[in-house]
């Protein structure tokens, strides 16, 4: 019988059989069971075993004994040690642990050398040296150290330096390629990590059984606290070994008694049961740290081939590739450490648009782990999503304070400074990024973005070209260079770049994006009929993609462009139907994101005279944005302002659109606010908005080029009414020039020509 073609249902079978599914899921699966012979057979087979588990007295007796009374309840509680009498000497406790461990399959001999005071228990665990295989080809030394870090990090009483922090410190001290082996270098690392304790381990033998020695030292004076030699027994694996080392280390560190009473989950339960999966996971993390995302994705996918329940592999894949992994990460999150669980919870919150929830979760994490730089980075990103740029910058600055070489944050800081209008700081941050990574393309690409945003078109073109020189297949630079040529009215190279971009990128989603960008070229020239034909052809091409669903976002954008073109032609029936299509397509893939395009739809409804519907939708939009915890609500204010503008209530339009402008520098906000100011007779305000719009070059301006080009005309009007005729004439000329090849009669062009002629005829 053929297997089931829908893996989602296959994965639900155990939960179904155990009665763990929600009612809706259960119904959906049962309908599938009626349809799918393969899944039906699996459930039927499972049900036979389940019936025996339920009703077989033999199994009941074997597994539970005759009684399930209170004595078993005690036995099943998490391993909790009896508190030692308070005055029991530490040495005696250590000896007891020695006996306990000797009795276990692992033969552990501990010889504590010195009692330690646990005032500051920060512990640095270095990768184990693999003496059996000095090249450590199986990465056993690294795996052992990482597992131990994870296991001990679960304790509230041991402050373990995280793997990420060790990686950062090694990089800061110039040990990027390999771990330091000289005592002086290790001591430097311990000092930088402010570690009180240092744990060094050697793998003496890997087969047939593992043999390991461990040494715990007081990093402040080099005194050895304890040393162990562990030899494996039976078929015990690295995970069991690490569990036993953890117990021994906790004892050796002379922690408070409460530390011994903490629940101590096996490390396999908070990572994976598969060494192979863990090995691929660590490789993925290593590639991730180098920003080699493609390689990291492949590594995490391989990890999942060995253990499909590895939550952190799902987490990283959700971040890097596909949000569908978020639910899997959540489902298996009990198999992660406290720190990792926080990131998963935050990601889930973000997937549900609950940015404040994500911030709260990670803020709590930074209180427990102050050096958690990634948490600060993520918090910053989430504040940006909430429009709170200043808060975002604080967290990015904190992240680079923890790790001055944190490349991605320098990059983020450069953009954040730019967003708050601090161009100088932005350049400093991006130059720092270039200094750290001169051989990478991304720093130059970012510099291109910053120069473009500052209106320095030539510098931007040079930066993007430099990025492409470093990495010819750096698609973002190719796309941006296309946009810059567009702004420079070099339409042929613009078209070539954007077509090359579409050709270069992989996957239906990006191909669809590329096709959208190609349509910017005729639109920028005012060739609206040609653009409409191209948009239709590209929409058809999107629908021919194998993964059609992934093209919906950019299909929505294409319909939005059609709406903008029809608006210029005064065809409001088509404007509204195209915008409705945009909303419909976008919501198919973002069911929780209900504001996208709605503010534009409101604007177009109002312009078409449908004020009641526009007002009702605006109220709905406001309630929705408030339910997401958004304080500033720029989309709401934009919609509200556009209704007032359409009604001719210009003062109110200026008030609302100014509110929107406080948190939005999008082309459409600047344009409509400029229009409102102009209508209200506030010429200074109008000039400021149109000038701001035309001062910078970015992808937003390329997308909204119809309005960006119209801005020249309205800026000309503002200047003319201010009696600043030479500037007005300059803007009219720019506008007429940009529209000289238009294939559609554009009313504003005729008016601009007349106004220009009038100004030029004046003495």
């Amino acid at each position: 019988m053929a297997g089931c073609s829908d893996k989602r249902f296959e994965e639900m079978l155990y939960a179904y059989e155990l009665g763990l599914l929600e009612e809706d899921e259960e119904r959906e699966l049962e309908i599938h069971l009626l349809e799918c012979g393969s899944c039906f057979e699996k459930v039927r087979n499972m049900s036979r075993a389940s019936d025996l588990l339920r009703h077989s007295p033999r199994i009941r007796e074997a597994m539970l004994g005759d009684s399930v009374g209170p004595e078993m309840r005690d036995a099943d509680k998490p391993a909790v040690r009896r508190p030692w009498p308070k005055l029991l000497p530490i040495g005696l406790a250590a000896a007891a642990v020695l006996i306990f461990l000797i009795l276990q399959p692992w033969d552990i001999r501990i010889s504590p050398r010195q009692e330690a005071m646990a005032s500051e228990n920060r512990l640095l665990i270095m990768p184990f040296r693999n003496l059996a295989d000095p090249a450590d080809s199986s990465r056993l030394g690294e795996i052992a150290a990482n597992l131990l870090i994870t296991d001990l990090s679960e304790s509230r009483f041991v402050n373990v330096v995280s793997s990420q922090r060790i990686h950062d410190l090694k990089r800061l001290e110039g040990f990027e390629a390999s771990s330091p082996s000289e005592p002086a270098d290790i001591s430097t690392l311990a000092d930088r990590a402010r570690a009180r304790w240092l744990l060094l381990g050697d793998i003496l033998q890997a087969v047939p059984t593992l043999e390991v020695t461990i040494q715990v030292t007081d990093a402040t004076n080099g005194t050895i606290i304890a040393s162990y030699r562990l030899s494996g027994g039976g078929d015990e694996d690295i995970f069991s070994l690490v569990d036993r080392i953890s117990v021994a280390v906790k004892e050796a560190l002379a922690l408070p008694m409460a530390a011994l009473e903490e629940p101590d989950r096996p490390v396999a339960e908070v990572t994976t049961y598969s060494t192979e999966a863990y090995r691929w996971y660590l490789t993925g993390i290593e590639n991730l740290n180098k920003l080699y995302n493609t390689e990291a994705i492949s590594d995490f996918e391989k990890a999942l081939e060995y253990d499909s329940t590895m939550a952190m592999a799902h987490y990283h894949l959700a971040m890097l590739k596909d949000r569908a992994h978020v639910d899997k990460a959540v489902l298996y999150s009990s198999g992660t450490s406290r720190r990792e669980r926080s990131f998963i919870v935050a990601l889930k919150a973000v997937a549900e648009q609950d940015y404040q929830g994500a911030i709260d979760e990670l803020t709590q994490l930074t209180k427990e782990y102050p050096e958690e730089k990634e948490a600060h980075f993520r918090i910053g990103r989430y504040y940006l999503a909430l429009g709170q740029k200043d808060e975002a910058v604080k967290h990015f600055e904190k992240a680079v304070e923890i790790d001055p070489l944190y490349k991605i944050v320098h990059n983020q800081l450069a953009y954040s400074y730019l967003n708050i209008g601090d161009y100088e700081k932005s350049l400093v941050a991006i130059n720092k990024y270039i200094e750290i990574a001169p051989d990478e393309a991304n720093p130059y690409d970012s510099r291109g973005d910053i120069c473009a945003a500052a209106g320095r078109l030539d510098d931007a073109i040079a930066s993007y070209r430099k990025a492409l020189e470093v990495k010819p297949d750096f698609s973002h630079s190719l796309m941006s260079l296309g946009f810059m040529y567009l702004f420079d009215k070099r339409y042929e190279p613009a078209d070539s770049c954007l077509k090359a971009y579409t050709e270069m990128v992989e996957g239906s989603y990006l191909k669809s994006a590329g096709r959208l960008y190609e349509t910017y070229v005729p639109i920028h020239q005012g060739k609206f009929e040609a653009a409409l034909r191209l948009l239709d052809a590209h929409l058809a091409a999107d629908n021919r993609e194998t993964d059609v669903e992934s093209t919906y976002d950019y299909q929505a954008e294409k319909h939005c462009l059609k709406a903008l073109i029809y608006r210029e032609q005064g065809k409001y029936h088509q404007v509204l139907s195209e915008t409705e299509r945009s909303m419909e397509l976008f919501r198919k893939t973002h069911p929780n994101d209900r504001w996208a395009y709605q503010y534009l739809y409101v604007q177009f409804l109002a312009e078409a005279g449908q004020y009641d519907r526009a007002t009702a939708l605006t109220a709905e939009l406001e309630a929705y944005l408030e339910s997401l915890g958004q304080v500033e609500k720029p989309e709401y204010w934009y919609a509200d302002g556009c209704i007032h503008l359409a009604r001719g209530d210009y003062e109110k339009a200026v008030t609302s659109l100014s509110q929107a402008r406080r948190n939005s520098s999008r082309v459409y906000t600047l344009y409509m606010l400029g229009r409102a100011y102009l209508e209200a007779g506030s010429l200074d305000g109008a000039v400021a908005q149109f000038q701001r719009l035309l001062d910078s070059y970015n992808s937003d301006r390329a997308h909204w080029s119809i309005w960006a080009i119209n801005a020249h005309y309205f800026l000309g009007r503002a200047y003319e009414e201010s009696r600043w005729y030479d500037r007005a004439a300059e803007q009219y000329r720019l506008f007429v020039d940009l529209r000289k090849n238009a294939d559609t009669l554009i009313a504003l062009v005729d008016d601009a020509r007349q106004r220009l002629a009038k100004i030029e005829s004046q003495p």
Partner: protein
Amino acid sequence: MEINNLQSKARCGDDSAEDRLFRLLRARFLLLAQRKLRDRDDSEEVVQEALKTVFEKHREMEFETSFAAWAHRVLENKILTFLRTRKRHNDRRENFVEGTAVGVQDQPDSALESRLLDCLRKLNRVNRRHARILVYKYQGFTVAEICDRLGLTRTNLYTLLSRARSMLEFCLEKGDLK
């Protein structure tokens, strides 16, 4: 999709397709009903009722989504009606709690039982907690009781249960744990 195709053919007058459709449907209905009713006789009775309704109406129905979804709703309604109206079910359920009722299979499959026991012992050796969780779950302990006994949160329990069940199934199929 097979039953949807069979239903389409049956609707056009293909008798052999209709025969096959109802044989498939009976087996699948029975599995779903037994899972909910935990009694073979009751399940047979409910499935018979559901099949009768499906047989009488499937040719004239306009299905909102699919035939399978509609057929499932028919079965679901029959089960609900049965649970509401028949006291007999409650009596039998109590018997199950007492452990005296006979399972779905009247004669236990001793080979399967031995394999199951062997796998549970293997599971117990590798991870005692996984084995305990499974046994507790199938012996009728509530989620709250198991969580209390093992000091687990509900989410942890669900994850461990799914993992344990998957390991057990693998062992039953391959003879050993992963």
